[in-house]
């Protein structure tokens, strides 16, 4: 007789099913439990927690920092701003866990340190997962959704897919599929003395180039769009990986960063020939290279969701989402984790959010959990009362220190609602939701980037149905709770 399966969450009926056990899935599962959802199954095809951090980044450390020692104590809400890698818990014992695994060689963790921090969160936060259960198919029935898995069917009212953006995506360039993708990059020693042509100029391309600098004889990075470094606040690139660019700028080092549309890649006995057309310069380029790597990015492994009607964006790579990370075309299907980066928010001045990084989506997951609890299961969130005298200090404190507002600039906002003669804390919500909702009088504060990249405190006021927007002064040390700020905020509220 076979062994009894003691894994959590056997197939059956649940209120919510979460697919994925990376940081997105773990944070969402934790937050749903703490928002009052009791019948939530968490499924993962992996044997253990960690998601993409069980494999990536390939060569380098992460680009998000965790400061083991900061001006505030670890475990506090304010410390989260100094630690962009730990998941967020409702108890001090669940907070700031990545820090304990860092050897302090750098202020960013190594891949294995991040993985350990995530596993610790799952253990301490009692996040149960049915491991080695792979989601395969999705369909609808009268009650909601049916997820077919390797262990059987799961029925639920609401699904949350925290499946990462981990499926290699190779741009449709003729011949490029003959070359390996970033995901298949080998140990750096294997590129010793070789010329390497990397298609792509974003973080994954530069991460590889940075790692190959001590080994390759020549490195070329190429893609159509020029690098944008003028306003670093709006650039998606991490400075940590930009040595190849610096070497190219100074010239003569064997590193080249080229703006070109790749016309074709031809494989031959000695390696590859690449043909390209200049984009910021007129002309053609033909190059021989021993190696070619397609660092052209990834897509979300959405399986049959498009067939179910889930609209996709970015050349079919990511699911299109509302401000609450719900599919724009199939209500009841939500997304968490890395893939939340496709819910762009207001995009003021083109600034995108940190929704695609752990530091951003850990807050999104908490907001999402509260939203699902309220919208689908009628579990109202507590809205603590505030007296009139408390409102301004409260809002100033949020502008000065709230990690949700600072990490997710222009994307998450803290709301205070007028209620009878007093006020209530309306919680942290997506800014795009606040500016679009109807409702009674309220105020909201957010930290945003101005057009020149300056970090700016902003106040929104809704009165008699009309919304107005007010920028408060910037500050060289980013202090937004000065007397000047207090006076301006008081004036706006009266």
């Amino acid at each position, binding site marked *: 007789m076979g062994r009894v399966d003691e894994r959590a969450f056997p197939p059956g009926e649940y209120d919510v099913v979460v697919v994925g056990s990376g940081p997105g899935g773990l944070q969402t599962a934790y937050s749903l439990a703490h928002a009052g959802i009791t019948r939530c199954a968490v499924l993962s095809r992996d044997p253990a927690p960690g998601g993409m951090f069980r494999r990536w980044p390939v060569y380098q450390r992460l680009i998000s920092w965790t400061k083991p020692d900061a001006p505030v104590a670890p475990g506090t809400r304010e410390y989260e701003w100094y630690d962009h890698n730990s998941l967020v818990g409702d108890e001090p014992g669940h907070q700031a866990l990545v820090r304990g695994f860092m050897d302090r060689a750098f202020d960013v963790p190594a891949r294995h340190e991040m993985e350990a921090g995530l596993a610790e969160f799952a253990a301490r936060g009692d996040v149960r997962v049915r491991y080695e259960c792979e989601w395969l198919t999705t369909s609808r029935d009268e009650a909601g959704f049916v997820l077919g898995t390797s262990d059987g069917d799961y029925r639920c009212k609401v699904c949350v897919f925290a499946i990462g953006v981990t499926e290699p995506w190779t741009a449709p360039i003729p011949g490029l599929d003959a070359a390996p993708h970033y995901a298949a990059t080998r140990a750096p020693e294997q590129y010793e003395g070789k010329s390497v042509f990397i298609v792509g100029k974003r973080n994954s391309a530069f991460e590889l180039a940075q790692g190959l600098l001590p080994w390759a004889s020549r490195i070329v990075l190429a893609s159509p769009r020029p690098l944008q470094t003028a*306003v670093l606040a709006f650039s998606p690139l991490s400075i940590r990986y930009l040595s190849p660019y610096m070497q190219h700028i100074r010239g003569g080092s064997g590193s080249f960063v080229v703006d070109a549309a790749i016309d074709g890649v031809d494989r031959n006995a000695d390696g590859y020939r690449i043909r390209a057309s200049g984009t910021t310069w007129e002309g053609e380029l033909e190059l021989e290279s021993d190696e070619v790597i397609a660092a052209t990015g990834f897509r979300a492994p959405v399986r049959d969701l498009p067939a179910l009607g889930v609209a996709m964006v970015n050349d079919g790579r990511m699911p299109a989402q509302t401000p609450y990370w719900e599919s724009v075309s199939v209500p009841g299907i939500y997304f968490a984790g890395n893939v939340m980066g496709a819910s762009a928010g207001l995009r003021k001045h*083109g600034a995108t959010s940190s929704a695609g990084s752990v530091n951003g989506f850990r807050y999104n997951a908490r907001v999402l959990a509260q939203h699902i609890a309220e919208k689908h299961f009628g579990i109202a969130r507590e809205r603590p009362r505030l007296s009139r005298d408390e409102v301004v200090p409260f809002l100033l404190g949020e502008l000065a220190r709230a990690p949700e507002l600072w990490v997710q600039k222009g994307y998450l906002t803290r709301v205070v609602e007028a209620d009878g003669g007093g006020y209530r804390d309306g919680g942290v919500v997506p800014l795009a939701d606040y500016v679009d909702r109807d409702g009674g009088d309220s105020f909201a504060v957010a930290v945003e980037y101005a057009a020149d990249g300056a970090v700016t405190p902003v106040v929104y006021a809704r009165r008699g149905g009309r919304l107005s927007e007010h920028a408060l002064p910037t500050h060289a040390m980013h202090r937004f709770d000065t007397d000047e700020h207090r006076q301006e905020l008081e004036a706006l509220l009266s």
Partner: protein
Amino acid sequence: MEAPADNYVDALARLALFADLTHPQLEVLAHSFDEEVFAAGQRVIRQDVSGGGFYVILDGEAHVVIDGTERSRLLRGDFFGEISLLTDARPTADVIAATVLRCLIIPDTELKPFLLKQPTVMYRMLQIEARRLRAANAWDG
């Protein structure tokens, strides 16, 4: 809404606004500016809220709404958001997705550099604005 058969570059190539761009120039465009898809009923541009961008519709329909009244409809190939950017003032209307709406977005700070680098696009925009202006005057007249 069904998934579009074109990839992003092909969808851009079909628009009159970009008809004069070469293929490498279309690739730069596709790599420089994001695509976004909005749910039906989602606001894209908000009256009195700063920081909005320039949008070109790749698929779907949008409505221009001022103080609750629908003023016009926008379809594939139409663009919006530029008045606010060109006059350096906040939007005076909402633009709301009527169906699932797929757009190219150029952030406000990048529209002018882009148009100066691609004068053919600027010229086509000017032609379309001229036609809009004439139609608006004819209505008033």
